[in-house]
Protein backbone atom coordinates (compact mmCIF):
# COMPACT_ATOMS: atom_id res chain seq x y z
CA UNK A 1 0.00 0.00 0.00
CA UNK A 2 1.29 3.44 -0.76
CA UNK A 3 2.37 5.87 1.92
CA UNK A 4 -0.41 8.28 1.13
CA UNK A 5 -3.12 5.66 1.24
CA UNK A 6 -1.82 4.15 4.46
CA UNK A 7 -1.64 7.54 6.08
CA UNK A 8 -5.15 8.53 5.07
CA UNK A 9 -6.71 5.23 6.04
CA UNK A 10 -4.87 5.14 9.35
CA UNK A 11 -5.86 8.70 10.18
CA UNK A 12 -9.46 7.96 9.29
CA UNK A 13 -9.61 4.73 11.27
CA UNK A 14 -7.81 6.13 14.30
CA UNK A 15 -9.84 9.31 14.51
CA UNK A 16 -13.12 7.60 13.79
CA UNK A 17 -12.45 4.66 16.07
CA UNK A 18 -11.22 6.66 19.00
CA UNK A 19 -14.09 9.10 18.66
CA UNK A 20 -16.64 6.30 18.71
CA UNK A 21 -14.94 4.65 21.68
CA UNK A 22 -14.76 7.93 23.57
CA UNK A 23 -18.38 8.62 22.76
CA UNK A 24 -19.39 5.19 23.96
CA UNK A 25 -17.25 4.98 27.08
CA UNK A 26 -17.07 8.53 28.34
CA UNK A 27 -19.81 10.57 26.73
CA UNK A 28 -22.61 8.03 26.91
CA UNK A 29 -23.57 8.47 23.27
CA UNK A 30 -25.06 5.04 22.95
CA UNK A 31 -26.55 4.78 26.41
CA UNK A 32 -30.34 4.69 26.34
CA UNK A 33 -31.25 8.32 26.81
CA UNK A 34 -33.19 9.16 29.96
CA UNK A 35 -36.58 10.19 28.70
CA UNK A 36 -36.86 13.90 29.19
CA UNK A 37 -40.30 13.59 30.69
CA UNK A 38 -39.42 16.11 33.35
CA UNK A 39 -38.85 18.61 30.54
CA UNK A 40 -36.58 20.83 32.60
CA UNK A 41 -33.71 18.35 32.26
CA UNK A 42 -32.75 19.99 29.01
CA UNK A 43 -31.74 23.33 30.37
CA UNK A 44 -30.14 22.75 33.75
CA UNK A 45 -27.42 25.07 34.88
CA UNK A 46 -24.02 23.76 35.86
CA UNK A 47 -22.69 24.30 39.36
CA UNK A 48 -18.95 24.33 39.85
CA UNK A 49 -17.38 22.74 42.94
CA UNK A 50 -14.15 21.25 44.24
CA UNK A 51 -13.79 17.93 46.04
CA UNK A 52 -13.43 19.58 49.46
CA UNK A 53 -15.66 19.46 52.50
CA UNK A 54 -16.46 23.17 52.15
CA UNK A 55 -18.48 22.28 49.04
CA UNK A 56 -20.05 19.13 50.41
CA UNK A 57 -23.63 20.35 50.16
CA UNK A 58 -23.30 20.50 46.38
CA UNK A 59 -22.90 16.76 45.78
CA UNK A 60 -25.15 15.90 48.71
CA UNK A 61 -28.00 17.95 47.27
CA UNK A 62 -27.47 16.50 43.84
CA UNK A 63 -27.44 12.97 45.20
CA UNK A 64 -30.53 13.43 47.36
CA UNK A 65 -32.34 15.05 44.45
CA UNK A 66 -31.55 12.13 42.24
CA UNK A 67 -32.54 9.60 44.88
CA UNK A 68 -35.83 11.25 45.71
CA UNK A 69 -37.03 12.70 42.42
CA UNK A 70 -35.07 10.65 39.94
CA UNK A 71 -33.22 13.70 38.65
CA UNK A 72 -31.48 16.84 39.77
CA UNK A 73 -32.30 20.42 38.89
CA UNK A 74 -28.61 21.20 38.31
CA UNK A 75 -25.42 19.60 36.98
CA UNK A 76 -22.55 19.52 39.44
CA UNK A 77 -19.19 20.04 37.67
CA UNK A 78 -16.11 19.07 39.60
CA UNK A 79 -12.91 21.10 39.21
CA UNK A 80 -9.43 20.47 40.56
CA UNK A 81 -8.29 23.95 41.38
CA UNK A 82 -9.53 27.41 42.07
CA UNK A 83 -8.17 29.01 38.89
CA UNK A 84 -10.01 26.58 36.62
CA UNK A 85 -13.18 26.85 38.69
CA UNK A 86 -13.06 30.64 38.51
CA UNK A 87 -12.29 30.67 34.79
CA UNK A 88 -15.18 28.35 34.05
CA UNK A 89 -17.44 30.78 35.94
CA UNK A 90 -16.05 33.73 33.99
CA UNK A 91 -16.56 31.94 30.69
CA UNK A 92 -20.23 31.38 31.59
CA UNK A 93 -19.79 27.63 31.53
CA UNK A 94 -20.78 27.34 35.21
CA UNK A 95 -23.11 30.27 35.96
CA UNK A 96 -23.43 29.02 39.52
CA UNK A 97 -20.42 28.03 41.55
CA UNK A 98 -19.08 27.31 44.99
CA UNK A 99 -16.22 29.71 45.52
CA UNK A 100 -13.97 31.26 48.16
CA UNK A 101 -15.69 34.26 49.69
CA UNK A 102 -12.73 36.68 49.23
CA UNK A 103 -12.36 35.48 45.62
CA UNK A 104 -16.03 36.24 44.93
CA UNK A 105 -15.64 39.69 46.51
CA UNK A 106 -12.49 40.36 44.50
CA UNK A 107 -14.30 39.41 41.29
CA UNK A 108 -17.10 41.81 42.22
CA UNK A 109 -14.52 44.55 42.76
CA UNK A 110 -13.20 43.82 39.28
CA UNK A 111 -16.66 44.28 37.80
CA UNK A 112 -17.75 40.67 37.44
CA UNK A 113 -21.55 40.30 37.83
CA UNK A 114 -21.42 37.86 40.73
CA UNK A 115 -23.68 37.60 43.79
CA UNK A 116 -23.28 35.47 46.86
CA UNK A 117 -26.63 33.90 47.66
CA UNK A 118 -25.78 31.37 50.35
CA UNK A 119 -22.90 29.99 52.38
CA UNK A 120 -21.25 26.67 51.66
CA UNK A 121 -20.46 25.75 55.25
CA UNK A 122 -19.18 27.18 58.46
CA UNK A 123 -15.89 26.21 60.11
CA UNK A 124 -13.54 23.44 59.11
CA UNK A 125 -9.82 23.71 58.54
CA UNK A 126 -6.82 23.69 60.84
CA UNK A 127 -3.19 24.58 61.14
CA UNK A 128 -1.37 21.26 61.24
CA UNK A 129 2.15 20.47 62.35
CA UNK A 130 4.02 17.19 62.41
CA UNK A 131 3.08 15.31 65.53
CA UNK A 132 6.72 14.85 66.59
CA UNK A 133 7.60 18.47 66.07
CA UNK A 134 8.22 20.77 68.96
CA UNK A 135 5.71 23.29 67.72
CA UNK A 136 3.00 23.99 70.29
CA UNK A 137 2.30 27.70 69.90
CA UNK A 138 2.18 30.05 66.95
CA UNK A 139 5.40 31.61 68.24
CA UNK A 140 7.17 28.28 67.70
CA UNK A 141 6.67 28.72 63.95
CA UNK A 142 9.33 31.41 63.85
CA UNK A 143 11.79 30.52 61.08
CA UNK A 144 9.70 27.50 60.04
CA UNK A 145 8.27 26.71 56.63
CA UNK A 146 4.50 26.93 56.42
CA UNK A 147 2.41 25.81 53.44
CA UNK A 148 -0.54 28.11 52.78
CA UNK A 149 -3.22 27.91 50.11
CA UNK A 150 -3.78 30.52 47.39
CA UNK A 151 -4.19 34.13 48.36
CA UNK A 152 -7.96 34.20 48.46
CA UNK A 153 -8.24 31.40 51.00
CA UNK A 154 -9.59 32.51 54.34
CA UNK A 155 -7.31 30.00 56.01
CA UNK A 156 -4.41 32.03 54.85
CA UNK A 157 -5.92 35.31 56.01
CA UNK A 158 -6.69 33.99 59.46
CA UNK A 159 -3.20 32.51 59.71
CA UNK A 160 -1.79 35.98 59.03
CA UNK A 161 -3.96 37.44 61.77
CA UNK A 162 -2.80 34.82 64.27
CA UNK A 163 0.81 35.56 63.43
CA UNK A 164 0.18 39.20 64.08
CA UNK A 165 -1.55 38.41 67.36
CA UNK A 166 1.54 36.48 68.39
CA UNK A 167 3.59 39.56 67.67
CA UNK A 168 5.19 38.15 64.55
CA UNK A 169 5.62 39.50 61.05
CA UNK A 170 4.95 37.56 57.84
CA UNK A 171 8.68 37.51 57.23
CA UNK A 172 9.21 35.63 60.47
CA UNK A 173 7.97 32.46 58.85
CA UNK A 174 8.87 31.01 55.52
CA UNK A 175 5.59 30.91 53.59
CA UNK A 176 5.16 28.64 50.60
CA UNK A 177 2.02 28.64 48.50
CA UNK A 178 0.83 25.14 47.72
CA UNK A 179 -2.30 23.45 46.37
CA UNK A 180 -4.00 21.90 49.43
CA UNK A 181 -4.08 18.37 47.93
CA UNK A 182 -0.28 18.36 48.00
CA UNK A 183 -0.04 19.53 51.61
CA UNK A 184 -0.36 16.20 53.47
CA UNK A 185 2.54 14.66 51.52
CA UNK A 186 4.61 17.78 52.12
CA UNK A 187 3.99 17.59 55.86
CA UNK A 188 4.61 13.86 55.93
CA UNK A 189 7.95 14.20 54.21
CA UNK A 190 8.68 17.18 56.47
CA UNK A 191 9.42 19.41 53.52
CA UNK A 192 7.21 21.87 55.38
CA UNK A 193 6.78 22.31 59.12
CA UNK A 194 3.14 23.33 59.10
CA UNK A 195 0.21 23.38 56.71
CA UNK A 196 -3.10 25.18 56.74
CA UNK A 197 -6.07 24.76 54.48
CA UNK A 198 -9.69 23.73 54.37
CA UNK A 199 -10.75 20.14 54.95
CA UNK A 200 -10.24 17.31 54.23
CA UNK A 201 -6.49 17.76 53.81
CA UNK A 202 -5.55 18.73 57.36
CA UNK A 203 -7.89 16.00 58.58
CA UNK A 204 -6.04 13.49 56.44
CA UNK A 205 -2.77 14.07 58.30
CA UNK A 206 -4.60 13.49 61.57
CA UNK A 207 -6.25 10.36 60.30
CA UNK A 208 -2.96 8.96 59.03
CA UNK A 209 -1.41 9.70 62.39
CA UNK A 210 1.41 12.11 61.61
CA UNK A 211 -0.42 15.42 61.88
CA UNK A 212 -1.35 17.31 65.02
CA UNK A 213 -3.55 20.39 65.09
CA UNK A 214 -1.68 23.45 66.28
CA UNK A 215 -5.09 25.03 66.42
CA UNK A 216 -8.37 24.62 64.62
CA UNK A 217 -9.37 27.71 62.73
CA UNK A 218 -12.79 27.70 64.41
CA UNK A 219 -11.07 28.17 67.78
CA UNK A 220 -9.75 31.54 66.69
CA UNK A 221 -12.66 32.50 64.46
CA UNK A 222 -15.85 30.79 65.52
CA UNK A 223 -18.41 30.36 62.78
CA UNK A 224 -15.96 31.43 60.09
CA UNK A 225 -16.79 31.04 56.43
CA UNK A 226 -14.50 30.10 53.64
CA UNK A 227 -16.70 29.07 50.73
CA UNK A 228 -19.97 30.47 49.47
CA UNK A 229 -22.48 29.75 46.77
CA UNK A 230 -22.28 32.45 44.10
CA UNK A 231 -24.55 33.06 41.12
CA UNK A 232 -24.26 35.12 37.97
CA UNK A 233 -26.51 38.17 38.06
CA UNK A 234 -28.19 37.21 34.79
CA UNK A 235 -29.24 33.90 36.29
CA UNK A 236 -30.63 35.70 39.33
CA UNK A 237 -32.58 37.99 37.05
CA UNK A 238 -33.87 35.38 34.60
CA UNK A 239 -34.14 32.16 36.55
CA UNK A 240 -35.15 33.18 40.06
CA UNK A 241 -37.29 30.12 40.70
CA UNK A 242 -34.50 27.72 39.81
CA UNK A 243 -31.96 29.55 41.94
CA UNK A 244 -34.45 29.51 44.80
CA UNK A 245 -34.95 25.77 44.38
CA UNK A 246 -31.21 25.23 44.38
CA UNK A 247 -30.68 27.30 47.53
CA UNK A 248 -33.57 25.57 49.26
CA UNK A 249 -32.17 22.21 48.35
CA UNK A 250 -28.72 23.10 49.65
CA UNK A 251 -30.17 24.49 52.87
CA UNK A 252 -32.11 21.30 53.44
CA UNK A 253 -29.17 19.02 52.73
CA UNK A 254 -27.06 21.12 55.07
CA UNK A 255 -29.55 20.58 57.82
CA UNK A 256 -29.74 16.93 56.85
CA UNK A 257 -25.97 16.59 57.25
CA UNK A 258 -26.11 18.20 60.65
CA UNK A 259 -29.16 16.21 61.80
CA UNK A 260 -27.33 13.08 62.93
CA UNK A 261 -24.15 11.07 62.54
CA UNK A 262 -25.82 8.37 60.43
CA UNK A 263 -26.51 10.92 57.74
CA UNK A 264 -22.92 12.12 57.82
CA UNK A 265 -21.53 8.61 57.52
CA UNK A 266 -23.97 7.99 54.72
CA UNK A 267 -22.89 11.16 52.94
CA UNK A 268 -19.23 10.25 53.39
CA UNK A 269 -19.95 7.02 51.56
CA UNK A 270 -21.88 8.27 48.57
CA UNK A 271 -19.96 11.52 48.10
CA UNK A 272 -16.60 9.76 48.20
CA UNK A 273 -17.79 7.14 45.82
CA UNK A 274 -19.77 9.13 43.27
CA UNK A 275 -18.38 12.66 43.48
CA UNK A 276 -14.99 13.09 45.11
CA UNK A 277 -13.42 9.78 44.24
CA UNK A 278 -11.64 9.71 47.58
CA UNK A 279 -11.43 7.01 50.19
CA UNK A 280 -14.70 7.14 52.19
CA UNK A 281 -12.70 6.71 55.37
CA UNK A 282 -11.22 10.17 54.92
CA UNK A 283 -14.49 11.99 54.49
CA UNK A 284 -16.02 9.97 57.29
CA UNK A 285 -13.12 10.97 59.53
CA UNK A 286 -13.41 14.69 58.84
CA UNK A 287 -17.16 14.66 59.16
CA UNK A 288 -17.15 12.77 62.44
CA UNK A 289 -13.97 13.42 64.37
CA UNK A 290 -14.86 15.78 65.92
CA UNK A 291 -18.46 15.86 64.68
CA UNK A 292 -18.46 19.65 64.63
CA UNK A 293 -15.27 20.06 62.59
CA UNK A 294 -17.39 21.36 59.72
CA UNK A 295 -20.93 22.70 60.12
CA UNK A 296 -23.62 22.97 57.46
CA UNK A 297 -26.31 24.91 59.34
CA UNK A 298 -26.92 28.58 59.77
CA UNK A 299 -25.78 29.33 56.23
CA UNK A 300 -27.60 32.60 55.56
CA UNK A 301 -24.98 35.25 54.66
CA UNK A 302 -24.66 37.76 57.48
CA UNK A 303 -23.33 41.29 57.12
CA UNK A 304 -21.05 41.11 60.14
CA UNK A 305 -19.24 37.99 58.89
CA UNK A 306 -18.50 39.51 55.53
CA UNK A 307 -17.35 42.80 56.96
CA UNK A 308 -14.86 40.84 59.02
CA UNK A 309 -13.64 39.05 55.90
CA UNK A 310 -13.38 42.34 54.02
CA UNK A 311 -11.35 43.79 56.87
CA UNK A 312 -8.95 40.85 56.98
CA UNK A 313 -8.54 40.75 53.23
CA UNK A 314 -7.92 44.47 53.05
CA UNK A 315 -5.22 44.16 55.67
CA UNK A 316 -3.61 41.38 53.66
CA UNK A 317 -3.78 43.59 50.61
CA UNK A 318 -5.88 41.27 48.47
CA UNK A 319 -9.03 43.41 48.40
CA UNK A 320 -9.38 47.09 47.55
CA UNK A 321 -12.36 47.58 49.80
CA UNK A 322 -14.43 49.02 46.97
CA UNK A 323 -17.20 46.41 47.09
CA UNK A 324 -19.45 45.96 50.06
CA UNK A 325 -21.97 43.52 51.42
CA UNK A 326 -24.88 44.90 49.41
CA UNK A 327 -22.83 44.84 46.20
CA UNK A 328 -21.83 41.24 46.33
CA UNK A 329 -24.53 39.54 48.41
CA UNK A 330 -28.14 38.86 47.52
CA UNK A 331 -29.88 37.67 50.66
CA UNK A 332 -33.27 37.32 49.05
CA UNK A 333 -32.88 33.57 48.40
CA UNK A 334 -31.47 32.51 51.74
CA UNK A 335 -34.07 31.13 54.16
CA UNK A 336 -33.86 31.95 57.86
CA UNK A 337 -32.07 29.17 59.66
CA UNK A 338 -34.93 28.12 61.91
CA UNK A 339 -37.22 27.93 58.88
CA UNK A 340 -34.99 25.25 57.28
CA UNK A 341 -36.07 21.66 57.83
CA UNK A 342 -33.63 18.83 57.21
CA UNK A 343 -34.30 16.99 54.02
CA UNK A 344 -36.59 14.04 54.75
CA UNK A 345 -34.44 11.80 52.54
CA UNK A 346 -32.46 9.85 55.10
CA UNK A 347 -35.21 9.46 57.64
CA UNK A 348 -37.43 8.14 54.90
CA UNK A 349 -34.77 5.63 53.82
CA UNK A 350 -33.93 4.31 57.20
Amino acid sequence: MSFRKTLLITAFVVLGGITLLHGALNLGWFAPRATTASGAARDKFRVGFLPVTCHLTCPVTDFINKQTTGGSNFDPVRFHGWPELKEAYLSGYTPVTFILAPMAIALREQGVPIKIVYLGHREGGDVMVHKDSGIYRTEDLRGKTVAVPGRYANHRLIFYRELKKAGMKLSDVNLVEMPPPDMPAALYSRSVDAITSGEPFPGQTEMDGYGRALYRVKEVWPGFISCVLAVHEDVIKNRRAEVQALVDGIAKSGKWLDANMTNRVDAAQFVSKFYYNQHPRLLEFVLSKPPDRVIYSNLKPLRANFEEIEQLAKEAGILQGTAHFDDYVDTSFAPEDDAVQPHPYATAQR
Partner: protein
Amino acid sequence: MPRPALRTAHATTLLSFALPVGVGVMFLLGWHAAVRISGSDLFPTPVEVGRGLLELARQGLLLKYVVASLFRVSWGFALAVAVGVPAGLLLGWYSRGFQAFNPMIQIFRPISPIAWIPVAILWFGVTDAAPIFLIFLASVFPITVSSIAAVQNMQPVYLRAAQNFGLSRGELFRQVILRASLPQIITGIRIALGVAWLVVVAAEMIAVNSGLGYLIIDARNAGKRYDLVVAGMVMIGVIGLVLDLLVRQLEKFDEVRWGYARR
Protein backbone atom coordinates in the same frame (compact mmCIF):
# COMPACT_ATOMS: atom_id res chain seq x y z
CA MET B 1 37.68 -12.94 18.78
CA PRO B 2 34.06 -12.29 17.87
CA ARG B 3 31.70 -14.96 19.05
CA PRO B 4 29.95 -16.25 15.94
CA ALA B 5 26.96 -17.54 17.91
CA LEU B 6 25.95 -14.02 18.86
CA ARG B 7 26.17 -12.80 15.32
CA THR B 8 23.25 -14.75 13.93
CA ALA B 9 20.22 -12.68 13.05
CA HIS B 10 18.14 -14.61 15.53
CA ALA B 11 20.46 -13.84 18.42
CA THR B 12 20.55 -10.19 17.45
CA THR B 13 16.78 -9.78 17.55
CA LEU B 14 16.66 -11.65 20.82
CA LEU B 15 19.27 -9.33 22.22
CA SER B 16 17.44 -6.25 20.99
CA PHE B 17 14.53 -7.38 23.15
CA ALA B 18 16.52 -8.66 26.05
CA LEU B 19 18.56 -5.50 26.53
CA PRO B 20 15.70 -3.02 27.07
CA VAL B 21 13.71 -5.56 29.07
CA GLY B 22 16.74 -6.15 31.26
CA VAL B 23 17.13 -2.44 31.89
CA GLY B 24 13.42 -2.22 32.69
CA VAL B 25 13.61 -5.06 35.19
CA MET B 26 16.66 -3.52 36.83
CA PHE B 27 14.78 -0.25 37.11
CA LEU B 28 11.76 -1.88 38.75
CA LEU B 29 13.96 -3.76 41.21
CA GLY B 30 15.84 -0.58 42.05
CA TRP B 31 12.58 1.28 42.53
CA HIS B 32 11.20 -1.42 44.77
CA ALA B 33 14.35 -1.54 46.84
CA ALA B 34 14.49 2.24 47.15
CA VAL B 35 10.93 2.43 48.50
CA ARG B 36 11.55 -0.46 50.89
CA ILE B 37 14.84 0.90 52.19
CA SER B 38 13.55 4.43 52.68
CA GLY B 39 10.51 2.99 54.46
CA SER B 40 8.22 5.50 52.78
CA ASP B 41 4.59 4.56 53.02
CA LEU B 42 3.51 7.38 50.70
CA PHE B 43 5.51 6.47 47.63
CA PRO B 44 4.25 3.19 46.18
CA THR B 45 6.31 0.17 45.16
CA PRO B 46 5.96 -1.20 41.63
CA VAL B 47 3.78 -3.99 43.04
CA GLU B 48 1.36 -1.49 44.56
CA VAL B 49 1.25 0.41 41.31
CA GLY B 50 0.50 -2.83 39.50
CA ARG B 51 -2.32 -3.49 41.94
CA GLY B 52 -3.59 0.05 41.39
CA LEU B 53 -3.61 -0.55 37.64
CA LEU B 54 -5.48 -3.79 38.11
CA GLU B 55 -8.03 -2.06 40.31
CA LEU B 56 -8.56 0.61 37.66
CA ALA B 57 -8.83 -2.01 34.96
CA ARG B 58 -11.40 -3.97 36.95
CA GLN B 59 -13.50 -0.86 37.44
CA GLY B 60 -13.33 -0.30 33.69
CA LEU B 61 -11.71 3.06 34.35
CA LEU B 62 -8.39 2.25 32.80
CA LEU B 63 -9.85 1.69 29.35
CA LYS B 64 -12.10 4.72 29.69
CA TYR B 65 -9.25 6.98 30.68
CA VAL B 66 -6.87 5.69 28.04
CA VAL B 67 -9.55 6.17 25.39
CA ALA B 68 -10.35 9.67 26.62
CA SER B 69 -6.71 10.74 26.54
CA LEU B 70 -6.11 9.15 23.16
CA PHE B 71 -9.23 10.84 21.83
CA ARG B 72 -8.00 14.29 22.84
CA VAL B 73 -4.46 13.68 21.69
CA SER B 74 -5.59 12.22 18.36
CA TRP B 75 -7.77 15.17 17.50
CA GLY B 76 -5.48 17.86 18.83
CA PHE B 77 -2.59 16.28 17.05
CA ALA B 78 -4.45 15.62 13.79
CA LEU B 79 -5.51 19.25 13.68
CA ALA B 80 -1.94 20.31 14.36
CA VAL B 81 -0.71 18.20 11.44
CA ALA B 82 -3.48 19.49 9.19
CA VAL B 83 -2.52 23.08 9.98
CA GLY B 84 1.20 22.79 10.66
CA VAL B 85 2.37 20.87 7.60
CA PRO B 86 0.75 23.08 4.93
CA ALA B 87 1.69 26.21 6.85
CA GLY B 88 5.27 24.98 7.19
CA LEU B 89 5.50 24.12 3.49
CA LEU B 90 4.24 27.54 2.47
CA LEU B 91 6.42 29.46 4.91
CA GLY B 92 9.43 27.36 4.05
CA TRP B 93 8.92 28.08 0.38
CA TYR B 94 7.93 31.75 0.37
CA SER B 95 10.72 33.58 2.13
CA ARG B 96 8.62 36.73 2.43
CA GLY B 97 5.98 34.79 4.29
CA PHE B 98 8.69 33.32 6.48
CA GLN B 99 10.05 36.77 7.27
CA ALA B 100 6.58 37.98 8.12
CA PHE B 101 5.43 35.11 10.30
CA ASN B 102 8.57 33.61 11.78
CA PRO B 103 8.95 36.10 14.67
CA MET B 104 5.31 35.50 15.61
CA ILE B 105 5.84 31.75 15.56
CA GLN B 106 8.95 32.05 17.68
CA ILE B 107 7.03 34.18 20.19
CA PHE B 108 4.19 31.68 20.50
CA ARG B 109 6.35 28.60 20.42
CA PRO B 110 7.97 28.76 23.86
CA ILE B 111 4.69 29.42 25.66
CA SER B 112 3.85 26.36 27.69
CA PRO B 113 0.40 24.91 27.14
CA ILE B 114 -0.16 25.31 30.87
CA ALA B 115 -0.12 29.05 30.36
CA TRP B 116 -2.90 28.63 27.83
CA ILE B 117 -5.21 26.82 30.25
CA PRO B 118 -7.16 29.95 31.25
CA VAL B 119 -7.60 30.88 27.60
CA ALA B 120 -8.75 27.38 26.78
CA ILE B 121 -11.35 27.44 29.56
CA LEU B 122 -12.57 30.92 28.67
CA TRP B 123 -12.97 29.96 25.01
CA PHE B 124 -14.12 26.39 25.25
CA GLY B 125 -15.43 25.93 28.78
CA VAL B 126 -14.55 22.59 30.27
CA THR B 127 -15.54 20.56 27.26
CA ASP B 128 -13.28 18.19 25.34
CA ALA B 129 -12.50 21.08 23.01
CA ALA B 130 -10.34 22.74 25.66
CA PRO B 131 -7.73 19.97 26.08
CA ILE B 132 -7.83 19.36 22.32
CA PHE B 133 -7.00 23.03 21.84
CA LEU B 134 -4.11 22.79 24.32
CA ILE B 135 -2.70 19.69 22.66
CA PHE B 136 -3.09 21.35 19.28
CA LEU B 137 -1.13 24.37 20.50
CA ALA B 138 1.60 22.24 21.96
CA SER B 139 2.15 20.26 18.79
CA VAL B 140 1.39 22.70 15.99
CA PHE B 141 4.55 24.75 16.48
CA PRO B 142 7.06 21.91 16.41
CA ILE B 143 5.33 20.56 13.30
CA THR B 144 5.30 23.94 11.56
CA VAL B 145 8.88 24.71 12.45
CA SER B 146 10.19 21.34 11.33
CA SER B 147 8.21 21.57 8.10
CA ILE B 148 9.67 25.00 7.42
CA ALA B 149 13.16 23.68 8.08
CA ALA B 150 12.50 20.65 5.90
CA VAL B 151 11.64 22.84 2.91
CA GLN B 152 14.49 25.22 3.55
CA ASN B 153 17.01 22.38 3.82
CA MET B 154 15.72 20.62 0.75
CA GLN B 155 18.45 19.55 -1.69
CA PRO B 156 18.38 22.24 -4.37
CA VAL B 157 19.03 19.65 -7.06
CA TYR B 158 15.50 18.22 -6.70
CA LEU B 159 14.04 21.64 -7.11
CA ARG B 160 16.12 22.36 -10.18
CA ALA B 161 15.21 19.03 -11.71
CA ALA B 162 11.55 19.79 -11.11
CA GLN B 163 11.86 23.26 -12.58
CA ASN B 164 13.58 21.74 -15.57
CA PHE B 165 10.56 19.54 -16.24
CA GLY B 166 8.32 22.57 -16.24
CA LEU B 167 6.09 21.78 -13.26
CA SER B 168 3.27 24.11 -12.36
CA ARG B 169 3.29 25.62 -8.90
CA GLY B 170 0.76 23.15 -7.56
CA GLU B 171 2.64 20.20 -9.01
CA LEU B 172 5.86 21.57 -7.61
CA PHE B 173 4.38 21.66 -4.12
CA ARG B 174 2.70 18.27 -4.23
CA GLN B 175 5.19 16.31 -6.26
CA VAL B 176 8.50 17.75 -5.21
CA ILE B 177 8.56 20.12 -2.25
CA LEU B 178 6.27 17.99 -0.08
CA ARG B 179 7.91 14.74 -1.13
CA ALA B 180 11.44 16.01 -0.67
CA SER B 181 10.63 17.38 2.79
CA LEU B 182 8.56 14.43 3.94
CA PRO B 183 11.25 12.51 5.82
CA GLN B 184 12.15 15.54 7.90
CA ILE B 185 8.50 16.45 8.35
CA ILE B 186 7.80 12.99 9.68
CA THR B 187 10.66 13.29 12.12
CA GLY B 188 9.12 16.57 13.26
CA ILE B 189 5.74 14.90 13.54
CA ARG B 190 7.22 12.16 15.66
CA ILE B 191 8.70 14.68 18.04
CA ALA B 192 5.46 16.63 18.09
CA LEU B 193 3.46 13.54 18.93
CA GLY B 194 5.74 13.05 21.91
CA VAL B 195 5.05 16.64 22.94
CA ALA B 196 1.30 16.23 22.42
CA TRP B 197 1.26 13.19 24.60
CA LEU B 198 3.48 14.96 27.11
CA VAL B 199 0.99 17.76 27.66
CA VAL B 200 -1.97 15.45 28.15
CA VAL B 201 -1.58 15.74 31.94
CA ALA B 202 -1.59 19.51 31.80
CA ALA B 203 -4.42 19.57 29.27
CA GLU B 204 -6.59 17.37 31.45
CA MET B 205 -6.06 19.56 34.48
CA ILE B 206 -9.07 21.36 33.16
CA ALA B 207 -12.17 19.94 34.74
CA VAL B 208 -12.70 17.28 32.15
CA ASN B 209 -13.55 14.17 34.14
CA SER B 210 -11.73 11.45 32.29
CA GLY B 211 -8.30 10.76 30.92
CA LEU B 212 -4.92 9.73 32.26
CA GLY B 213 -4.01 13.29 33.20
CA TYR B 214 -7.28 13.49 35.07
CA LEU B 215 -6.42 10.20 36.78
CA ILE B 216 -3.23 11.72 38.15
CA ILE B 217 -4.84 14.94 39.32
CA ASP B 218 -7.80 13.10 40.71
CA ALA B 219 -5.58 10.67 42.57
CA ARG B 220 -3.79 13.59 44.17
CA ASN B 221 -7.12 14.87 45.42
CA ALA B 222 -7.99 11.43 46.66
CA GLY B 223 -5.67 11.57 49.63
CA LYS B 224 -2.99 8.91 49.78
CA ARG B 225 -3.52 7.28 46.42
CA TYR B 226 -0.04 7.84 45.05
CA ASP B 227 -0.17 4.34 43.63
CA LEU B 228 -2.77 5.67 41.21
CA VAL B 229 -0.70 8.77 40.48
CA VAL B 230 2.19 6.53 39.49
CA ALA B 231 -0.18 4.19 37.66
CA GLY B 232 -1.24 7.16 35.55
CA MET B 233 2.40 8.01 34.91
CA VAL B 234 3.17 4.44 33.91
CA MET B 235 0.25 4.32 31.49
CA ILE B 236 1.27 7.62 29.91
CA GLY B 237 4.80 6.35 29.50
CA VAL B 238 3.81 3.00 28.04
CA ILE B 239 1.31 4.48 25.60
CA GLY B 240 3.87 7.10 24.62
CA LEU B 241 6.26 4.29 23.75
CA VAL B 242 3.61 2.50 21.69
CA LEU B 243 2.69 5.70 19.84
CA ASP B 244 6.31 6.33 19.00
CA LEU B 245 6.74 2.79 17.71
CA LEU B 246 3.66 3.23 15.54
CA VAL B 247 4.80 6.53 14.05
CA ARG B 248 8.17 4.99 13.40
CA GLN B 249 6.46 2.56 11.07
CA LEU B 250 5.87 5.52 8.78
CA GLU B 251 9.60 5.87 8.35
CA LYS B 252 9.74 2.45 6.75
CA PHE B 253 7.84 3.45 3.63
CA ASP B 254 9.88 3.69 0.45
CA GLU B 255 8.58 7.19 -0.13
CA VAL B 256 10.44 8.48 2.91
CA ARG B 257 12.96 5.83 3.83
CA TRP B 258 15.61 7.44 1.65
CA GLY B 259 15.66 10.42 4.01
CA TYR B 260 16.98 8.54 7.02
CA ALA B 261 20.62 7.70 7.42
CA ARG B 262 21.08 4.05 6.63
CA ARG B 263 23.23 1.99 8.86
